[in-house]
C-alpha cells in the first residue's frame, strides 16, 4: 500500500501547519489540535511525529534522538518511519540536521538559525499536578493565575530545602505563559533561552502543540533567594573526558561499580574522534 508523503494526508498536514503557525504566534501556549492515530502507540512520540510529518520536506536532513542517543530503539524506529514514508536523508550529526526530533534531551552542541527542534511531550500541562481538570487549568492560563505553582515550589523548599524538581522543570516563556519543556533534565533548561533555533513541542495523546520562537526569553521558575541551578557531576565522561555535558550512569559490576558517559552520543563521538586526533599529533 502506498502512503502520502510523510504518511499524513494533506488535510491533516494543513490542520497541523495552521496549528503550528498559531503556536509560534503565542509562545508557550498549548494549542489544541485534532491529533490522528499514528502507527505508533500514544505515549511513544506520536505528537512529535505529527509535527515533524507536517513540516518535513524532501530537502530536509532528519536526526532523531531519545535520551540523547541516536541508537536507542525508539529513536531508530522513528527515524526508519520517516526514511520510509518521506525518503528524507537522516543523520546522527547535530550540526548536519535541519530537523531534530528529540525525547528527553536537548543536544549538547549549540543549535543554529534555521534548525528546528521538535520535542516529544507526554504531559503538556504544567499545572496538571496541581489541578487535574482541563476546564480549570485553561482558566488559570487565561488569567495568568500562576500563584498555585509558586506555592507548590515554595512548599518543596520548606520540605526539602530546595526546589525538588529534577526534570520537566517548568519555565515561563516571553514573560507570559508557563510551559513544560517536556521531561528534559533541568540541566538542559538554559539551552532553551534565546536559542537561535525554532523549538516546537508535540503532545499526541493529549492533543496539544506549542512553540518557542527563536531568540525568545525562557526563564526557569525560581525565587530570588532560591535561584535556579543545574545539575553537576563529580565525574567526567569516561569515554571523552567531557566535564560540561549531561552524563549517564552505567552500572558495570554486581558490586555496584559504575562509570559515567555522555548521554549525547553524537557529542561524545565527536570529542572522542578529536581526542584521538590530538593524541596522534
Amino acid at each position, binding site marked *: 500500500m502506498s502512503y*502520502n*508523503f510523510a504518511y499524513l494526508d*494533506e*488535510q491533516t*498536514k*494543513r*490542520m497541523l*501547519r*495552521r*496549528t*503550528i*503557525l*498559531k*503556536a*509560534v*504566534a*503565542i*509562545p508557550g*501556549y498549548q*494549542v*489544541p489540535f485534532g491529533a490522528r492515530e499514528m502507527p505508533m502507540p500514544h505515549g511513544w512520540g506520536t505528537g512529535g511525529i505529527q509535527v515533524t510529518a*507536517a*513540516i*518535513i*520536506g*524532501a530537502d530536509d536532513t532528519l536526526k532523531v534522538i531519545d535520551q540523547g542517543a541516536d541508537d536507542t530503539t525508539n529513536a531508530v524506529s522513528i527515524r526508519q518511519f520517516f526514511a520510509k514514508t518521506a525518503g528524507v536523508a537522516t543523520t546522527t550529526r547535530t550540526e548536519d540536521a535541519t530537523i531534530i526530533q528529540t525525547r528527553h534531551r536537548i543536544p549538547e552542541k549549540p543549535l543554529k*538559525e534555521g534548525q528546528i527542534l521538535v520535542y516529544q511531550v507526554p504531559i503538556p500541562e504544567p499545572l496538571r499536578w496541581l489541578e487535574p481538570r482541563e476546564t480549570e487549568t*485553561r*482558566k488559570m*492560563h*487565561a*488569567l495568568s493565575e500562576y500563584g498555585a505553582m509558586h506555592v507548590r515550589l515554595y512548599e518543596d523548599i520548606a520540605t526539602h530545602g530546595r526546589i525538588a524538581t529534577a526534570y520537566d522543570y517548568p519555565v515561563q516563556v*516571553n514573560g*507570559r*505563559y508557563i510551559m513544560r519543556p517536556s521531561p528534559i533534565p533541568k540541566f538542559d533548561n538554559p539551552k532553551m533561552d534565546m536559542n537561535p533555533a*525554532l523549538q516546537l513541542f508535540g503532545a499526541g495523546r493529549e492533543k496539544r502543540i506549542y*512553540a*518557542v*520562537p*527563536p*531568540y*525568545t*526569553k525562557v526563564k526557569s521558575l525560581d525565587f530570588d533567594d532560591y535561584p535556579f541551578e543545574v545539575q553537576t557531576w563529580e565525574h567526567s565522561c569516561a569515554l571523552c573526558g567531557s566535564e560540561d555535558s549531561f552524563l549517564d550512569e552505567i552500572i558495570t559490576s554486581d558490586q555496584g561499580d559504575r562509570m559515567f558517559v555522555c548521554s549525547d552520543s553524537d557529542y561524545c563521538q565527536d570529542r572522542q574522534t578529536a581526542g584521538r586526533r590530538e593524541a596522534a599529533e
Partner: protein
Amino acid sequence: MNQQTKIALQQLARGFNDPQLDAQRVFRQLLQAMARPGQIVPIDRLPEAPEPLCGGAAALALTLFDLDTPIWLDEALCATASDYLAFHTGAPVTAEIGDAAFVLVADGRQLPDLGKVALGDAEYPERAATIIVQVEGLRIDAGHRLRGPGILGHVDITVDGLAPEFWSALQANRRRFPLGFDAMLVAGDMVLGLPRTVVVDKTEA
C-alpha cells in the same frame, strides 16, 4: 459536467504544480516568516493566480486554506478570486469579517476595519484571525522598528503601499496579548510575518 462549468474550469488559473511538495515548501517559508518577524522571506513556489491576487498571496492561500477555514475577501478579490479559491481550496467565503479564520486584502491602502476581526478569547487565544495584506514593497530600511520573540535585538523595515492605520492597529493589537490577530504582508513573492507578539516602536514616519 455541463458546458458552462467546463468553460469556467478551463479559464481558472492553475494552482500549485505539485500540491503536496509545493505546499510543504511554502509552509516552511511562512513558518520562517512568522518565527523570525522582520525577515523578508521569498516564496519560491508561485501558482498562477487571477489578478489582483499576487503569486505570494495565492501560494499562502493554497497552502493554508481549506474546508475548515472560513475566509473573508475584500471587494476586489470577491469579484475576481472567489471561483479560484473555491476550486483550489474549498474554503467557505463569509461576509462576516468576524467569522473569518483568514482575512485576505488585495490592497494594503484599503484596509477593512481591523477592529472587527476575530481576536481569539482568553481561554482559546488561537481562535484569532490571520490577516493577509498585499502591499507594494517590503524592505529592510528605517521605517518601523520591530522587537520581540523571533527578533534578535530589533529590525527596521519599510513597507510601501500600506495604510498608516495598520501600524496603530498593530500596536493596539500588541496590548491585547495573548489575544490579537496575526498578520502577513505580501509583496509579489515576498512575505513578512507579523505575529501578535511583535512590538512596533514609535518611529518618525
